[in-house]
């Protein structure tokens, strides 16, 4: 049996707008949460969610039904986040490309200064600290950590979304975890 998303995608491919609206309803909050955590900016997160759905809509013909619809849509959204983050901090994007075997030190990113104040208000003091710490996560750990912790994906699912081996995902989760722990420990 085909999951619901695949059925909806088929209908949308034939031009059924209501089916597409259902896909939007199913994924918009999840994608917004992911993008908001990755970008630390509500407006950018909203743009990314919008852009993701636009791409999904335009490329429905390319959706390969052998993979899960969620894998495909998360891949589009994550790639859009990564692209934007790279453009935002070109100096650091070079570091993000470096090998997994290199140390963590020196790879931290500067927190962005364009956070919208209203998003801060919703968070407790502890959550604000975590939020800020996530912003300093190097890019290559950030996508993996966001999928792991904010979408509750298995390592296998993450490896499918990011199209990298599970072993790489595992290494990145471990390093990302250590990075956050070291940063958070003195603050909490």
């Amino acid at each position, binding site marked *: 049996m085909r999951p619901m998303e695949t059925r909806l995608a088929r209908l949308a491919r034939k031009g059924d707008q209501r089916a*597409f609206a259902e896909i*939007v309803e199913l994924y918009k909050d999840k994608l*917004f*949460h992911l993008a908001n955590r990755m970008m630390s900016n509500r407006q950018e997160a909203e743009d990314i969610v919008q852009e993701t*759905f636009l791409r999904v809509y335009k490329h429905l*013909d390319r959706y390969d039904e052998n993979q899960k619809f969620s894998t495909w849509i998360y891949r589009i959204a994550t790639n859009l986040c990564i692209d934007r983050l790279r453009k935002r901090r070109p100096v650091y994007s070079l570091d993000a490309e470096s090998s997994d075997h290199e140390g963590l030190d020196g790879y931290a990113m500067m927190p962005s200064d364009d956070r919208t104040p209203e998003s801060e208000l919703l968070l407790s003091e502890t959550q604000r600290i975590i939020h800020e710490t996530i912003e300093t996560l190097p890019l290559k750990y950030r996508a993996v950590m966001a999928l792991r912790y904010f979408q509750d994906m298995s390592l296998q699912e993450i490896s499918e979304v990011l199209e990298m081996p599970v072993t790489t995902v*595992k290494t990145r989760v471990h390093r990302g*975890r250590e990075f956050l722990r070291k940063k958070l420990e003195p603050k*909490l």
Partner: protein
Amino acid sequence: MKCGDAIAYMHEYLDGDLPLEQRRKLKHHLSECPACAARFQSMQHTEALLRAMPVEAAPADLTHKIMKSLPRTRSPKSWTTWVRRHPGMSAAAIFLLIMLSSFVAMWNQGQQLSLKGDDLEHVVVKGRTVIVPEGERVEGDLIIENGELQVLGEVDGNLTVIDGNVTLASTAHIAGKVKEIDRAMDWAWYKLTSWFDTLAYGS
């Protein structure tokens, strides 16, 4: 157990990938090593805090905005998409289509001689007779309609003669097949073209 191994086990544990036997070993090490115990506690604390981060819902009007931003009509399934989905089929289909359309073009040309082939430099046309001269070699196929074909030389592919005649000299050499089609008689040919006409003109 060394502390380094214990740390690796901690991560595996948090991944949900640490087998029971190793879990016991880790537990034992933590009971003896305060440094590792503190580290493990800190890791679990971080873990819990991350998972407890509140989920902010997308702005209420986002669905509306998205639906409005979509192009007005999804472009109908394009030819290229179909080709991408049926790579094997499509090559055959395109070939068939090209073949059929060239035949139909010939049909529409009435009783005039028509000649198709990849290599027409090596043939000689005299009136309604097409000649492959002795010592010449034609690469690929030749399709002749409403005419005579005389082969004295070589043809590297198939010969198809529609509503005509073919004469092969003793010096002739045909690498492929020779096919003569009489449109008035050939039922298959009739079916094929009428099917194509229906497809193309909806009649």
